[in-house]
């Protein structure tokens, strides 16, 4: 079959708006569009209910004040301080303010929150969330047992069914069409039969999640390979603040599955080999509920100094004093994870844990309307939107607080839906022209992998990438490790250019798609390492052993990594500061 014949046969679907990804951000945006009567489609490489929003456990913070006094302004402050002052404060203010109506809206949609004795939404403590600007922990996290994300995902999908949202399940988006500075649609790959489909749309939203699979030990699903970030990056959109990646303190040893911070919110304690509550030395006020970057570093320090359990590379999360009732009612899922994956009974035994790569603070730069911006002046790229972990607003700055990710996807997912509605209406329904033969460039890339008879195994490249990133670009970084990683990425990239697959079929060829995904991870890693090498300070999740202090004089700014020959070009843009001037960060 000639390329021209294939191109002529490529189906073209027309929608006012196309959303890529069906987690919390994508679903809420879709709901907003459906309620506003905008013809929209949601594309997901999974089924919507498989999205990783469903794995979020502990809760979603909002200053409801149901159990004790609380204010959105305190939440805003905690978010900014937690992010080590790299947070854009206008965005953090929106996040904290709209948290309250967002949680109520979820309840109105039917989300089964845990309740207080008087029937209100129950709330519990979470890391870094405090009353009165850091005085003491506050009960701010609304939750549904330890499956809050599952309930959010289910509830939003239920509402999408109710409102007739159109889904393309198991369509893997493989290109975004941007020409002449205007977004024109996407190309999707139908996993069921291997066909390419062009989606022409005036508004394209990426809600594709993170890229934790670039690290060996991660809480992230196999599907979190940075697809949206990499596709945008390849089309000239920069990636912002990629050097900031969060390692969550409490992952299951060896496999990284998350044990929620809610375990510590309910009173769980971290202990070293001698049984000492070591967080007393690192964060005397917040103790085990200090922000994740501090706790993860503290765990590594204990391990380095030989105080890991039995001198090994993990410590204990002790829940044994909480009692069976609290554990069964409030932490049922995570204690089951410990039983299934470690053979540990948390009611009677401490749980071995180690930090696990968890969350990308960086991503596709957007403004507070979730419109993608592409330069130092925050100029909008017409027709492109992003929200959730793939985006960088930035509400998380250099380190995200627990529960703020669920909040982020919902607040800015909804804002994306509203912005798309506005822009679609302003265009009077006219769709942008498609580029000539829009599916052909990516068809060439895919066919090259599918038909190459011999070459590199993409999974070997992924395993090497993930191991090296863990060692050289993980919790601790130095000039040397980052330069080593830069060289290694060049080598892995060269090998990737020769990737081959054994499965040359068209129906459900997951080997081919996994090979594509490794390419996305390499792109995200490239931007991460370049930005990390350039940033000669330590802030939040980015810790440079050779530059251990925060340096506001030179580095209170966001990085922007642009794809270029021979490695990314880095530019910088200022942080928006409104109410809270940077201060030393102690807990």
């Amino acid at each position, binding site marked *: 079959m000639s390329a021209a014949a294939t191109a002529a046969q490529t189906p073209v679907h027309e929608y006012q708006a196309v959303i890529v990804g069906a987690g919390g951000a994508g679903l809420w945006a879709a709901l907003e569009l459906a309620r506003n009567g905008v013809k929209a489609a949601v594309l997901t490489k*999974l*089924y919507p*209910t*498989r*999205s*990783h929003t*469903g*794995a979020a456990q502990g809760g979603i913070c909002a200053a409801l004040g149901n159990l004790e006094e609380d204010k959105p302004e305190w939440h805003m402050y905690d978010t900014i301080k937690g992010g080590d002052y790299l947070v854009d404060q206008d965005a953090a203010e929106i996040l904290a303010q709209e948290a*309250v*109506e967002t*949680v*109520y809206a979820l*309840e*109105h*949609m*039917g989300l*089964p*929150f*845990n*309740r*207080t*004795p*008087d*029937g*209100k*939404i129950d709330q519990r403590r979470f890391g870094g969330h405090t009353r009165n600007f850091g005085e003491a922990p506050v009960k701010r996290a609304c939750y*549904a*047992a330890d*499956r809050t994300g*599952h*309930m959010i995902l*289910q509830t939003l999908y*239920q*509402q999408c*069914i*109710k409102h007739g949202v159109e889904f393309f399940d198991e369509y893997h988006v493989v290109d975004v069409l941007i020409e002449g500075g205007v977004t024109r649609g996407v190309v999707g790959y139908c996993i*069921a039969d291997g066909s390419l489909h062009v989606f022409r749309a005036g508004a394209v939203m990426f809600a594709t999640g993170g890229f934790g699979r670039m690290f060996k030990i991660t809480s992230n*699903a*196999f*599907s979190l390979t940075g697809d949206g970030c990499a596709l945008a990056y390849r089309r000239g959109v920069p990636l912002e603040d990629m050097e900031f990646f969060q390692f969550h303190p409490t992952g299951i040893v060896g496999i990284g*599955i998350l044990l929620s911070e809610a375990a510590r919110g309910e009173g769980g304690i971290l202990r070293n080999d001698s049984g000492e509550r070591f967080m007393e030395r690192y964060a005397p006020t917040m103790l085990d509920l200090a922000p994740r970057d501090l706790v993860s570093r503290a765990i590594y320090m204990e391990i380095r100094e030989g105080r890991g359990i039995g001198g090994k590379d993990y410590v204990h999360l002790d829940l044994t004093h909480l009692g069976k009732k609290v554990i069964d009612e409030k932490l049922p*899922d995570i204690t089951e*994870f410990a039983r*299934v*994956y*470690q*053979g540990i009974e948390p009611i009677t035994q401490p749980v071995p844990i180690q930090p696990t790569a968890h969350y990308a603070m960086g991503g596709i730069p957007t403004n507070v309307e979730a419109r993608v911006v592409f330069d130092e002046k925050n100029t909008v790229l017409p027709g492109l939107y992003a929200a959730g972990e793939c985006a960088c607003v930035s509400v998380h700055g250099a380190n995200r607080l627990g529960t703020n990710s669920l909040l982020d996807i919902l607040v800015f997912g909804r804002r994306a839906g509203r912005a798309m509605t506005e822009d679609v209406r302003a265009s009077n329904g006219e769709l942008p022209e498609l580029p000539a033969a829009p599916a052909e460039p990516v068809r060439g890339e895919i066919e090259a992998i599918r038909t190459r008879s011999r070459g590199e*195994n993409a*999974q*070997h490249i992924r395993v090497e990438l993930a191991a090296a990133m863990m060692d050289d670009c993980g919790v601790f970084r130095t000039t040397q490790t980052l330069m080593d990683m830069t060289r290694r990425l060049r080598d892995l990239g060269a090998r990737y250019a020769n990737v081959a*697959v*054994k*499965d040359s*079929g*068209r*129906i*459900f*060829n*997951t*080997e081919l798609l996994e090979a594509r995904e490794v390419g996305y991870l390499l792109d995200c890693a490239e931007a991460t390492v370049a930005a990390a090498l350039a940033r000669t300070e330590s802030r939040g999740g980015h810790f440079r052993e050779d530059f251990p202090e925060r340096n506001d004089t030179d580095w209170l700014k966001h990085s922007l990594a642009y794809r270029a020959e021979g490695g990314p070009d880095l530019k910088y843009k200022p942080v928006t500061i409104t109410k809270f001037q940077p201060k030393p960060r102690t807990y």
Partner: protein
Amino acid sequence: MQVDLRVQRFDPERDSKPHWERYTVQSEPMDRVLDLLHRVKWEADGSLTFRRSCAHGVCGSDAMMINGRNRLACKIRVDQLGRKISVAPLPGMKVIKDLVVDMDEFFAKYRSVMPYLMADDEPPVNAERHQSVHERERYDDTTKCILCAACTSSCPSFWAQPEYVGPAAIVNAHRFVFDSRDDHAYERLQILADQDGVWRCRTIFNCVDACPRGINITRAILEVNGAIGERGR
């Protein structure tokens, strides 16, 4: 240790019917079946095809029949199964390729029970609806469902009558029928009172064994059944 792994394979572009293939896989006792499948796919045969995503039992992608029972591949360990492990697609479902089955009908049945809150009252402004701890507890069990299809495809009534709406859809109806905030239990109960509804359940309990979330599915079906008797007709 070495595991003797047998996998039912079917490539629609080459095969006319499914066949079994054997692999000898190096394994640790705490490995999950998903780890074994990945080892085969990444090292021996890239064409081995299965769905998976979260790899810790919450996304519901990798339900399959393992040693004769429906399990999530990411939630069942080698030491629970022994050295001989057989893996096949979910029974009673149309096979697309290897361990991947067609989920369209399953999701269509889920949608058919109106699985979303329908409340007639306007919700309060800038506040939540109240619900007591007891009212919340009433439907807690059925909120755990991850729509993996392990239960429905384990059900002999479903195998015999593919039109049967199936345990998963009933579980998701239960979640709303018993939610104190919902006002439209009647419509759902009418749907489930149909000849392809709850009456098809023969209380065989395969679904309870299959559920990776530990939901007491048969009890939920019986409760829906009882509700039809009380208020559904």
